[in-house]
């Protein structure tokens, strides 16, 4: 109960953050050359000034910036993100269609990076400064330095073009309709390369942090107590070190949720996945500012949601949280 209250308070504290982001980006977009109506007119293949003026009045774009901002925020409260001129649909609908692919990709990449980060981090810390550690640490550094889009392209060259093991893009095979378990397997097959591509840099970060965290915890007094009790090294690690070492890892997930979402822009473009990231890219290229603002809003919500879950998990892991605050 206490945990929920704590997390609830954190959630409430993120409302000003959200408003700050929305107001900031809204005002920023006012500086952009051209507005939604310009984009629409371009889409329609041009039109006269009268039509443009009518459209502006219709969308409330003739009002002052503050009034527009007020209108926008008021509509947001009712979950109305406005209308996308490019897609000819409400922005909310456009985003809803693209959201699942991104969430799927993020969940898969995060799980991959987190799990293998822990495994490799523990292995490296156990054999610190010996060859497994050197190998893992070196690989970690190289993964960290690899541009994800480039890794994606090279993976396509090797696995899709040369070996022909995995598909080069898309979320499912469009040449045939599949159902049930086959659909799941097909989607999974399509997600392998994007997951690796997006997860690679996070794997590098997680394994480095896990290794450092393990080494840090191993120097703490209670580890000496555990050894003085007669525990063998495996038990010392499993029963005393691991959980303590996981705490910074969990914090990191929350801190990096935004970075990962940003990374999906590039990865979804490389693998032509119909996700939120590619939508963001397309809206920038097509100057669909309404959609862009909507994406910003939803992304911020997503990051806040991830942090909410992280807070809950952290409070589960660390009993010290409950007595504070």
């Amino acid at each position, binding site marked *: 109960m206490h945990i929920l209250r704590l997390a609830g308070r954190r959630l409430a504290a993120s409302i000003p953050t959200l408003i700050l*982001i929305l107001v900031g980006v809204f005002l920023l977009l006012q500086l952009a050359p051209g507005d939604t109506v310009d984009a629409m007119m371009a889409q329609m293949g041009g039109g006269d000034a009268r039509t443009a003026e009518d459209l502006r009045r219709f969308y409330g774009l003739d009002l002052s910036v503050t009034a527009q901002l007020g209108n926008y925020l008021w509509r947001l409260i009712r979950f109305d993100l406005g209308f996308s001129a490019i897609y000819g649909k409400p922005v909310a609908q456009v985003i809803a269609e693209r959201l699942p692919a991104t969430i799927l990709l993020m969940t898969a990449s995060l799980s991959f990076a987190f799990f293998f980060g822990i495994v490799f981090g523990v292995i490296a810390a156990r054999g610190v400064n010996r060859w497994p550690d050197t190998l893992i640490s070196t690989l970690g550094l190289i993964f960290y330095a690899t541009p994800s889009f480039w890794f994606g392209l090279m993976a396509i060259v090797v696995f899709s073009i040369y070996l022909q093991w995995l598909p080069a893009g898309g979320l499912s095979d469009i040449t045939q309709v599949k159902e049930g378990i086959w659909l799941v397997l097909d989607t999974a097959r399509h997600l392998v390369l994007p997951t690796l591509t997006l997860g690679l840099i996070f794997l590098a970060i997680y394994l480095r942090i896990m290794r450092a965290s393990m080494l840090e915890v191993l120097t703490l007094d209670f580890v000496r107590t555990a050894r003085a009790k007669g525990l063998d090294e495996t038990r010392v690690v499993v029963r005393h070190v691991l959980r303590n070492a996981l705490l910074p890892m969990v914090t990191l997930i929350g801190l990096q949720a935004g970075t990962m979402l940003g990374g999906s822009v590039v990865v979804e473009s490389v693998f032509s996945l119909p996700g939120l990231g590619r939508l963001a890219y397309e809206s920038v290229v097509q100057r669909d500012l309404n959609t862009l603002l909507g994406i910003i809003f939803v992304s911020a919500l997503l990051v806040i949601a991830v942090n909410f879950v992280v807070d809950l998990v952290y409070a589960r892991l660390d009993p010290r949280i409950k007595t504070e605050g």
Partner: protein
Amino acid sequence: MAFVRAYFRSPPAVIGLFLLLCVIAMAVSAGWFFPRDPLALAGRPLVWPFANPRFPLGTDNSGRDIAAQIFYGARISLLIGGVATVIAVIIGIVIGAVSGYYGGWVDNVLMRITEAFQTLPNFLLLLVLVAVFGSNITTVIIAIGIVSWPAPARLTRAEFLSLRNREFVQAGRTLGLKDMKLIFGEILPNALPPVIVYASVVMAVSILLESALAFLRLSDPNVASWGNLIGLGRDVLRVQWYVSAIPGIAILVTVLAVSLVGQGLNDALNPRLKGR
């Protein structure tokens, strides 16, 4: 001097420094080896590497010399990494120092803003900035600096929080030192080393961010950027994969070098934590 010796005792740090010097040498010598515009037509398109001695690394889809673009690209990457990092670190230090030193409502407001920047995916913000202000190279550099400051700010703040109640700072206050003297004369020199080390991370990320932007063709098309070339090579990926592969390796080596140097600095500054 002990610091320099400690640095050179670690082989990875030495390798990193060597690689970084190589990249810098490429950037410096670009105009000398390739006096012509790297983006000008040089020969037949899509010549494979080593096929024609005039183009040791081949040519791209529009017949431009890849080697020349790699050399000139080093300039752009280092320029972006360097300037964007300086921008991010300076903003970060000022905000983190003020926030950590004064605490209270100042801290509250500044940390809310930092949190807002961190909640907003930085690449999305970068897209917005580029969409609004255009994508010439100056804009891109400033934009990357602007999206990268929150992490150094948090780090500086954390250092200040732990240092501001340290006894030597209190001693300075009882001697009658002014706030600015305490911040910049007493606390900052002690808070700086971890921030400087972290600057290497900011630099690595800045280089990666620009290359990603260029890959999406949202960076300046009028400069020879490695990311641009990878994006270009994507059109001929099925057969002439080398057009994308070569600049990617250049990015990898540069970012690796920066990271290794950063880690070397860290180990040399904190000998106790060696091997972490």
